[in-house]
Each structure stands twice: as structure tokens, then as C-alpha cells.
């Protein structure tokens, strides 16, 4: 088994009203100096066997077709404990 983490973030040019709401709440709680907050999603996938190149390609396909919407979001795929097979992908 391997654990694969997919992080999905709204593209920088897309407005993030939720992040803005979080940022707006911080000064009310007495936390100052946070200039911007952007909110994303983190998916943890437990996959069978080793994560080889073909499995990694499939994980990118999963991230691109279901976990993210490439029109408005970017994603990154990381295989936990394996620096070599991690990769950032801007859709």
C-alpha cells in the first residue's frame, strides 16, 4: 500500500470567497498581519502496491478528471515517503 496525497487549489486568478471570509475573520479574533488566505482541498488516497510510473500517470488522470476541475483549479500529486515520484502539475 502507498499513500498518495492530491492537493487541489483554485487557480491564482480565480476569486476565492471562502478564503476571503477566513481572512476577514482573523482580525476579529485578534490575529493581525495575514495578508491573504486561499482555501483548497486535500485528498489522501491509499493505493495498492507500489506507485510506479504507469500508476502515477493514472493518479494524475484521477486528479485531472474527478478531483479537480482544470478550468478553475490546479493540482499537485505527492507520493508520501517517496520524493522521486512526487510531482507538481499545473493543469
Amino acid at each position, binding site marked *: 500500500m502507498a499513500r498518495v496525497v492530491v492537493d487541489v487549489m483554485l487557480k491564482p486568478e480565480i*476569486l476565492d*470567497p471562502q478564503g*476571503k*471570509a477566513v481572512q476577514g475573520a482573523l482580525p476579529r479574533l485578534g490575529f493581525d498581519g495575514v495578508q491573504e488566505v486561499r482555501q483548497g482541498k486535500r485528498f489522501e488516497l491509499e493505493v495498492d502496491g507500489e506507485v510506479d510510473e504507469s500508476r502515477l500517470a493514472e493518479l494524475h488522470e484521477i486528479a485531472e478528471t*474527478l*478531483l479537480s*476541475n482544470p*478550468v*478553475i483549479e490546479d493540482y499537485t500529486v505527492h507520493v508520501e515517503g517517496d520524493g522521486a515520484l512526487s510531482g507538481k502539475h499545473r493543469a
Partner: protein
Amino acid sequence: MKVGVVTFPGSLDDVDAQRAVRLGGNEAVALWHGDHDLKGVDAVILPGGFSYGDYLRCGAISRFSPVMTEVIDAANRGMPVLGICNGFQILCESHLLPGALIRNDHRKFACLDQALRIENNRTPWTSSYAEGEDVTIVLKNGEGSYVADEATLDLLEGEGRVLARYVGENPNGSLRSIAGITNERGNVVGLMPHPEHAVEDLCGPGTDGLGFFTGLAAAVLA
């Protein structure tokens, strides 16, 4: 003609859409998200609501439901398809329409009687309106802000594919005040506001929405 209305788990406006279809003079056929079957319908409506709880992204999971495989096939063959609100989100997730719908810029759920200008009356869903006609129907959404990149927005405007625009104050932050769009062929329409809630005088802001359902048969048979 027979107009199918898809019910997904979490659809809210399927029954209202069926009623609007009947008031528009057509036969409403209930379609189920889990069936690979369009039951011989001539057109399909994807209604509003919160299909699959809006989990992941609005429309993201519905897009892969069995019935959507059939709807996408039929749409690509030219069948008229109307996605209202959550249905519009599903059509964008399905890549039948460009762009996406994100959370309203003011972060609040919007529920109001909304004025729109019909800019394209050449689709089967808008043929009973005059070009440039203003109508008032219901708008109710939390994630109704239409976004696309500049090139896509220019293309939509250049090809006359902006179906309708909000009149007056922009209610949700949609780029260029876009309320609805159509595909290149003109058979697939996505609209954020709800014409099916404006088909009778008893409730809603009037009957301005009825035209989406009455013009259909004439447009398809023409």
C-alpha cells in the same frame, strides 16, 4: 414532444421542471440518474438542486452518473438539452459548455426575482422570446458566479453564445454579467436562474419563464 427531466439524488426542482414542461404543452418524462436510458425523449432538462450534495464540486459527481453518458451522447448528436442552475453546473463539468460556476462573490446565497436580457433567441429553448427582451424570473444559488478565461468570454460574445445576461446589479459576480450560455451548435443551454419557477401567476414573479418550455416543439420541428 417528450421532454425528459433527470432526477439525481439531491435534485430539488425536478418536479417543478416537469410541471413547467406540461404547462408548456409537452409531455414530461421522469429520467433517473442511475439508468442508461433516455426513454425515447426528444429533449432533456437537468434541473436545479444539490445533486450528490454538491460534494467535491457542484455537478462533479453527477457528471459521471450513468444517465449523463446518454445525455452527453445525445447532446453531441444535437438533442436539445437545458441545464438550470445545478444543471448548468453539470453541463460545465461535463465539458458540454465552457467555463465553470464558482461561489457567489458576496458569499451569500442569493434568492430574488431577477431581471435578465435574452440575447440569443436562436436556441430551441429561447425561440419564443424576442432578441433583447427583458424577462424576470427567479434566481436562487450559492455558487452561481460564471467564470471562464478572457479568450473564452470573448469567443462566447463574438459568436453570440451569451444566451442571457443579468440586468441591473450583478447578483453573484458572474463575469460580464453572464446568466446563461449555449454551445457552438446551439442545442445545449445552461442557465443559472430558474424559468420553471416563473410559469404561473399564483406563485413566483410571473410567467416570463414559460417561453423556455413553449417554444421547444416548434423549434425542434422547424
